[in-house]
């Protein structure tokens, strides 16, 4: 039986870290993830964990710390947000290409500028091609549950993994949560036992060596394979987690999709708000549904295309813009997923929404469905690249 508690998303992540008791944390604070290393540092100070807590002078150094420690054979973690994440960008690529399964908690926040501390997904979207596995939570519960599964996933395919949630909206909101007993957590996560590591004295090795054109593309191909392999691992770990807790997770979550004519594809806390919009519209007899993307990397292209193949129209919701003049990052990937899987009948539009903490209401999503209903009726998409609820 789980432990009934109420915690913010940041508290939930810090608590999961405490239960796991990793070897090393590289830490540098930035709003709204600051509380994570802050809470964790008190666990270190109180002797509740024996993690080496390394306070550094920047996020670049925090990730470098994790890379050094993980390469040495230590399970390493960090937490960050926004500009901190993109300040890490150089080292994120190094971590992935060195195949170091570091775990990074991200409380997502807009990028400057204009300078803003509130939530959107522009930070993680800007590093989505760094080679990290990326899971995104709708709630504090999912942030906690994803974190407990993270190391199992990352270590199985030797890739680093980000556990993302919406800054402030879930990171700072107190909500009910069911925690797993610590001994069960420890048994589930297990010990980190890498096959190759720098401190293995009988096997001298180099990490991060130069790759000439004769080797570089093969290294990248192996990374690509690991990311493809991660899809099955995520599902297997989720199945084991469901056995332990009763809470099931997939690469995506389908909500009232079975007979849906219109659907939204969405990530994070706004998926919960959108579920309420779907419930209300269903009560009015409208056939609407929702797809929540949990795994952004690897991208569940086939699963999304399958889930959308029978709808008449759908909207991909992007809490970040690509500034390419025609769509947001998830809009592009979902469109590619549909075409690659030969699903070309449904009409698609793409909304940029919720940037810089603009509040996303039930009514906001109902407006999207109203637009989709018009598209279904007329067969005309009109403008496919849209901003939701913006003053012009």
């Amino acid at each position: 039986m789980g432990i009934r508690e109420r915690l913010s998303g940041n508290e939930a992540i810090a608590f999961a870290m405490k239960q796991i008791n990793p070897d090393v944390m590289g830490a540098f604070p930035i709003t709204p993830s600051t509380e994570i290393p802050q809470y964790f540092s008190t666990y270190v100070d109180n002797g509740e964990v024996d993690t080496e807590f390394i306070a550094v002078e920047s996020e670049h150094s925090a990730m470098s710390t994790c890379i050094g420690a993980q390469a040495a054979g230590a399970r390493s973690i960090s937490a960050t947000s926004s500009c901190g994440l993109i300040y890490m960008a150089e080292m994120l690529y190094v971590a992935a290409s060195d195949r170091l399964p570091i775990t990074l908690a991200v409380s997502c926040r807009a990028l400057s500028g204009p300078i803003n501390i509130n939530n959107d997904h522009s930070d993680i979207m800007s590093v989505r091609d760094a080679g990290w596995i990326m899971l995104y939570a709708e709630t504090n519960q999912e942030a906690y549950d994803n974190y407990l599964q993270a190391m199992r996933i990352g270590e199985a395919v030797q890739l680093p993994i980000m556990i993302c949630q919406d800054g402030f909206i879930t990171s700072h909101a107190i909500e009910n949560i069911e925690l797993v007993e610590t001994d069960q957590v420890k048994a589930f996560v297990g010990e980190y036992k890498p096959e190759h590591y720098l401190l293995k004295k009988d096997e001298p090795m180099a990490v991060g060596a130069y790759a000439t054109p004769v080797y570089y593309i093969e290294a990248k191909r192996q990374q690509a394979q690991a990311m493809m392999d991660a899809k099955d691992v995520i599902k297997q770990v989720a199945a084991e987690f469901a056995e332990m807790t009763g809470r099931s997770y997939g690469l995506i979550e389908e909500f009232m999709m079975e007979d849906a004519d219109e659907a939204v594809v969405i990530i994070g806390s706004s998926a919960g708000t959108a579920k309420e919009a779907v419930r209300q519209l269903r009560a009015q007899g409208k056939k609407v549904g929702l797809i929540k993307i949990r795994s952004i990397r690897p991208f569940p292209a086939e699963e999304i295309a399958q889930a959308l193949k029978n709808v008449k129209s759908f909207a991909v919701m992007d809490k970040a813009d690509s500034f390419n003049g025609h769509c947001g990052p998830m809009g592009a990937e979902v469109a590619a997923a549909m075409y690659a899987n030969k699903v070309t009948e449904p009409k698609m539009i793409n909304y940029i929404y919720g940037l810089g903490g603009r509040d996303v209401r039930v009514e906001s999503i109902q407006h999207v469905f109203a637009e989709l209903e018009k598209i279904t009726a007329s067969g005309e998409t009109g403008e496919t690249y849209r901003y939701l609820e913006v003053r012009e």
Partner: protein
Amino acid sequence: MNDIVEIRWHGRGGQGAKTASLLLADAAFNTGKYVQGFPEYGPERMGAPITAYNRISSERSTVHSNIYFPDYVVVVDETLLYSVDVTAGLKPEGAIVVNSGKTPAELRPQLKGYEGKVCTIDAGKISEEELGKNFPNTPMLAAIVKVSGVVEAEAFVQDMEASFKHKFASKPQVIEGNMRALKRAMEEVQVG
């Protein structure tokens, strides 16, 4: 059926409105409810208007937006009545609770024609008398619990006592002062 109660708090940075909203979430959680307690974040500074929210329900609410049509509004600083539209969206079958030495009848003209219950509590005075300082959040929390009934009164008092004993383990006089402030607020809140 999900009997959701939505509450919006208006205060000024440093007055403890955010803390009060989190304490209310705690109190409701302890009686078995599903809770949300969250402030609206931004470039905060002491004295600037802030807003915080609670959703309290018997089933988990999946909504993660601010609250636009609250059942109850709590105003921790009376001067906000003149700069913030505190009754915006407030349901007429609900109530507003204002930290004020005025009576509900005296205050009602400031509330832009709001037709629901108007409640006042002199949280500043209670706090000064019982704690020696102006910490209005404990009496305001007690007043909204009394007015809304969102947490059963006796359970709330017991829960808060346990919480204060935990928080102020080394300062028993602070525990007693807070408990007196809490009980007085529940008795003295005026409903009009």
